[in-house]
């Protein structure tokens, strides 16, 4: 089923998403990958505030290539999600609405998704040029020193993704294998 989804997400709507649904995301999402996750995790351990609120937000596991003049962003496809598995449950417990990446997730992440009613979307890996077309604005809002790994606030319009693991833990990858 093709579904239009507004971000940040309404957790009640997220619960209706099913593994295998094709969604088009419009609104505001945030990027974070390995280094930003490590830093957020350390901030939480130290009792510090995170640079972004997790509540209802979507994190896109992505580090873009540099933008040419006059363009919002460079190539912008997903990175492998499993590298964020160590950090994701803590963010899900803070209300993170969903994650966009590619590839498998750990049991701990799926348990945290079920516990908190969140979803995991896959965007098409290696389609960074195509996906960049759905990003209309990009602004670094934290951890600027991390370069491509900084946290970016993105404005997206009909960003295409597939629900791979839904909030009940139903997993499209498992269905295939």
């Amino acid at each position: 089923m093709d579904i239009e989804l507004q971000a940040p997400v309404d957790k009640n709507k997220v619960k209706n998403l099913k593994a295998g649904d094709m969604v088009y995301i419009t609104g505001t999402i945030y990027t974070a990958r390995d280094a930003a996750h490590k830093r957020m995790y350390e901030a939480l351990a130290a009792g510090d505030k995170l640079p972004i609120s997790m509540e209802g937000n979507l994190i896109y596991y992505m580090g873009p290539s540099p933008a040419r003049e006059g363009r919002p962003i460079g190539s912008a496809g997903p990175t492998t999600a499993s590298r964020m598995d160590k950090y994701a449950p803590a963010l899900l417990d803070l209300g993170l609405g969903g994650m966009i990446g590619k590839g498998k997730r750990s049991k701990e992440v799926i348990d945290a998704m079920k516990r908190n009613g969140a979803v995991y979307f896959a965007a098409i890996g290696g389609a960074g040029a195509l996906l960049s077309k759905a990003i209309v604005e990009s602004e670094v809002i934290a951890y600027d020193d991390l370069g491509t790994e900084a946290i970016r606030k993105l404005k997206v319009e009909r960003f295409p993704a597939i629900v791979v693991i839904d909030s009940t833990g139903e997993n499209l990858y498992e269905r295939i294998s």
Partner: protein
Amino acid sequence: MREINVSEITRVVKEMCISVNYRLSPDMQKALDKAWNDEESELGKKILSQLQDNLYIADNDQIPICQDTGMAVFFFKVGQDVHFVGGDLTEAINEGVRQGYREGYLRKSVVGDPLIRKNTGDNTPAVVHYDIVPGDKVIVTCAPKGFGSENMSRVFMLKPADGEEGVKAAVVQAVKDAGPNACPPMVVGVGIGGTFEKCAEMAKEALTRPVGEHSDIDYVRDMEEEILGRINETGIGPAGLGGKVTALAVNINTYATHIAGLPVAVNICCHVNRHLTKTL
């Protein structure tokens, strides 16, 4: 002795880094077209058609095919009658990478130390494999490697008794374990024989062989075809979301090995298998 100024190497490396990240080689374009024709899953076909759109946009809008523009890997086959002048050859290669990644708007994805993990800011250093060969030419192959698929690569130190079947099973297992993480449809580079490091290097170099060209050793060619068939029976499919086309090719390189060993390396590459060769 033929003299080559290393500034020429910098220029060539810079140009190769840029062009290889914006346009796939004709063999890869052709393989992706064939994949679209062969795929039977509706979703798989849709994904493959989006990958074709992605290539078109990358070339047309001058935006890298994939945001992971890789760690810059080079194979340098240097004729023994060549004399490099004008500076340090490896530094000239790194200068080409530095300029290419800056001027080509390519992502800087390299950290200077594997544990301290501070980004070097210019995508250097490159990984360069040198080989001394007869003649006075220099053959340069540029093959930047993304790490989504690199992370799913494996080395198996098999026993001689494991034989051909052991090798085939190991390669298929590596691909199954990689699944959606490695951005299928993949190209699978395999090295068989040599030593621990030699087989890994062969697997990497096998990825630079054009898709569609087979090993000139008969039994190896048969293995390439058989393993590809088995991989495409796994059902992993485009983006790991199911389908017939999981890999576009299996390229195997072999080398002599020790009486006690059967090393096998599997270097997996995503559908953005970038490789470009120039002869100077």
